[in-house]
């Protein structure tokens, strides 16, 4: 949508990311709760029982620092955890261990492309906290409303990434979210799936008339569980606020939830009910000292990030930029492609075409993930080499690839069984002559001007050679033999 002229829109995003560590943030219980029956992945610590104490999950700290490094944040040497106090039944201790004034990562930026331009969205901070239990509201057996608690999610490591209010419309917000999700996946720190809550984006939206004093009425919008919902909710909210201002009404500072079915935002909490979280340093955890050695070690562990890979594909390897864009959407596919490119003597673009078309089609058909391509990069490179040498035609190479997916047999075995392409002119000419002799009608048709007859004869040659004949050569030879036949 186009923002009505005369208004300034400012959006800041707060993104919660569940980290895919093996165990929870402060105990050894498994964090892989997604498919576990309710309340089976719990222990005294994540249940918040009396007397229990938290112990920091070092992997979660590492993942957060890696995210900060990817977002160009500063990693201060001193960080700490704090208690954020609020009373809600999904919060086992009635306080959440979070980070208040000394987060793990400070500052940074993420470059996005939206509305045809490239912009840097500034990052305020990245900090680490724990997720809450999950409440489900149901109607009980007695017909009364009831709430069910699943504590499996309680204590799952949760990273929060906060932006400066640098975003001005829904498209930019979506571009930011998509780019961030991709980086998180490349880093391997989160599944970053929005639909199962591993990635949750909340937005603070402020609108005010240009020329008026800078608006300070922030409306927080929550509950968007897809990128589509994020875009719709922001469009709706911007329009709603402008509508209110147009009618001369005042905006209220509040929290609103996106209602997917009604396609609108609904007020959940107004300022009068704003929490005083009474933050104070978590006395159960010593302050975090982040050594420079640790940061260096994590820097070395960082994979090449999508932007860098894209740049390399386009600028050094001559891959079309649309193809590069497609590839970096999928970390595993991109890594595979780069691996094949490195082993392939021919142009990188050739590899990219094969991967984006044939490999991806076969993956989709078999519902395989890109991480589970059944053909090693070495075999793939070998296949492309056979194709380049003319030992396999494109069609044959495609068939071999398909068979490798289906049978997982080694390339050599399949090629040996199927045979290589026949490009030998004498052998093919001999077969062409035999086919012509066996099909006088087709030859006559050709001479009568029906060019299509060549196709028929060609098909017969391919049949005799079980598809191994080099099609270009066969066409060439057939035409030569046919004109000689006419001359005879």
């Amino acid at each position, binding site marked *: 949508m186009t923002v009505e002229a005369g208004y300034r829109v400012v959006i800041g995003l707060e993104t919660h990311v569940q980290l895919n560590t093996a165990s929870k943030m402060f105990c050894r219980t498994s964090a892989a709760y997604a498919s576990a029956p309710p309340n089976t992945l719990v222990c005294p610590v994540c249940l918040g029982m009396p007397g229990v104490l938290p112990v920091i999950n070092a992997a979660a700290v590492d993942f957060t620092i890696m995210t900060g490094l990817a977002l160009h944040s500063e990693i201060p040497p001193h960080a700490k955890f704090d208690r954020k106090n609020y009373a809600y039944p999904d919060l086992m201790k009635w306080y959440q261990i979070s980070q208040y004034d000394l987060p793990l990562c400070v500052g940074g930026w993420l470059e996005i492309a939206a509305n045809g331009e490239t912009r840097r969205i500034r990052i305020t901070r990245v900090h680490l906290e724990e997720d809450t239990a999950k409440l489900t509201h149901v109607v009980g057996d007695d017909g009364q409303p009831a709430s069910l608690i699943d504590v499996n999610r309680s204590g799952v490591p949760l990273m929060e990434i906060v932006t400066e209010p640098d975003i001005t419309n829904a498209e930019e917000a979506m571009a930011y979210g998509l780019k961030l999700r991709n980086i998180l996946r490349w880093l391997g720190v989160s599944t970053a799936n929005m639909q199962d809550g591993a990635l949750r984006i909340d937005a603070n939206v402020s609108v005010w008339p240009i020329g008026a004093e800078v608006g300070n009425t922030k409306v927080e919008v929550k509950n968007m569980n897809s990128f589509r919902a994020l875009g719709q909710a922001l469009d709706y909210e911007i329009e709603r606020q402008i509508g209110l201002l147009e009618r001369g009404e005042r905006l209220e500072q509040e929290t609103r939830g996106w209602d997917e079915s009604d396609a609108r935002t609904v007020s959940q909490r107004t300022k009068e009910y704003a929490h005083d979280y009474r933050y*104070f340093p978590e006395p159960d955890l010593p302050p975090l000292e982040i050594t420079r050695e640790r940061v260096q070690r994590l820097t070395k562990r960082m994979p090449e990030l999508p932007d860098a890979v894209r740049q390399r594909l386009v600028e050094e390897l001559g891959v079309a930029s649309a193809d590069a864009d497609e590839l970096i959407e999928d970390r595993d596919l991109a890594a595979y492609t780069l691996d094949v490119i490195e082993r392939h003597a021919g142009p990188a673009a050739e590899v990219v075409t094969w991967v984006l078309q044939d490999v991806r089609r076969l993956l989709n058909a078999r519902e395989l993930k890109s991480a589970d391509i059944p053909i090693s990069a070495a075999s793939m490179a070998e296949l492309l080499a056979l194709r380049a040498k003319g030992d396999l035609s494109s069609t044959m190479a495609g068939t071999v690839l398909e068979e490798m997916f289906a049978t997982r047999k080694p390339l050599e075995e399949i090629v040996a069984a199927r045979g290589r392409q026949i490009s030998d002119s004498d052998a093919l000419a001999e077969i062409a002559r035999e086919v012509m002799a066996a099909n006088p009608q087709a030859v006559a048709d050709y001479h009568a001007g029906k060019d299509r007859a060549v196709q028929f004869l060609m098909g017969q040659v391919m049949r005799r050679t079980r598809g191994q004949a080099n099609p270009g050569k066969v066409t060439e030879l057939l035409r030569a033999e046919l004109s000689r036949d006419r001359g005879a």
Partner: protein
Amino acid sequence: MTDDLFRLTVAEAGDALAAGDISSVDLTRSVLDRIDAVDARTGAYLLVTADAALAQAEAADDRRAGGDAGPLLGIPLAIKDVLCTDGVATTCASRILEGFVPPFDATVVARLKDAGAVLVGKTNMDEFAMGSSNENSGYHPVRNPWDLSKVPGGSSGGSAAAVAADECLAALGSDTGGSVRQPAALCGCVGLKPTYGRVSRYGLVAFASSLDQVGPLTKSVHDAAVLLAATAGHDPRDATSLPEPVPNFAAELDGNVEGLRVGVAPEYFGEGIDAGVASAVEDAIGALEANGTEIRAITLPHTEYALPVYYVIAPSEASANLARYNGVKYGLSDPQAVDVDEMMATVRAQGFGAEVKRRIMLGTFALSSGYYDAYYLRAQKVRTLIKQDFDTAFESVDVIAAPTSPTTAFDLGGRTADPLAMYRADVLTLPASLAGLPAISVPCGFVDGLPVGLQLIAPPLHEARLLRVADAYERLRPETPALRQAVEA
């Protein structure tokens, strides 16, 4: 050696068990009989686990028959009800935790079990360890075995009374601002608060996390050394526990304090200190001096701020620590409530006692937006100053000697109407707590038939030195005329 086994110290009983003179079952029966005889008068226990104790005693005897040994093998001990015990109700003397049975042992409890100790029961206390008289128990008060009209001190009043009245051979308590040392002083037993971090807090129900420490209450300094060695040491479940190795404290007690420098600060002998108490403590210091220690005057100028600092920091932490008791998961609940908000409100209104509510409100206020800097942050800064006082003092002395409590045991009901008067009972124990230092209270005589405690304070992790001085004093302490405990009457 059959009737009065309950009177033995841990060391004496250990020798008798090792020599095969008695069995742990004999010893445990004797203690259980003693509890039957006197606990109605002291109120020291909230729960006696007689059957489990006898089973543990049998197991200990079997272990010994199998060649096992150890200073705590088969020794009957009591556990303050603030420590989680697997399968055994743990209430913190609060109605809000009524019916709560932890599915795990506190690390210290697990370590005692591993050492073969027999756990006789859970001792009474001030609710959530908040109090100095044990009158804040949500169940019943504890009476001082020396005078049943007096308080035993708190919050580990049940553990202190149980040790003093021989209802166990030794006990564990917890000390946040003096909750082991002050009742030990008032009941005439030894009470040790280790360095913050020396003993794991895992399974210790939190009152004020930056101050809480588990410590032993015993009949002798030697026994305190044995219990400390058994419970101390790094615990991967407690991020604040210290990695330092744990020496064999008891083996180092040789009575030699020659050349040790003992600091005496005027701030611990000023206004509000009972003259009889001061005089008993001065005598004790004199005895140390006569035996080769050097007495040095020191000053701890920020001592007077310890009380206000403590009553900002401890309630602040408590306000968060006690938030989880809302009736949703365990303990008291309200099935009649119309919704979850009402249930949580009702449970907290009914389940917490007045002192606990007062401290939750104090802490909530101190942490509130707009007040945090003036209260919590300021208190943390002054806490640092108090710590620096001690750092400076320990540049010139090895230990500091002082009274443990300003007075002897006071009347039951005597201070309940005046919270501030009650808070002042801890004025001499709070500074070492705020500084995280190890400190011990050792009996040093009587005033009007009531025990007095000598408090010794050492630098961080110097429990060995602390125990050495306390043990040396215990050896040279003049024999007092045998006083008869009221509980015996």
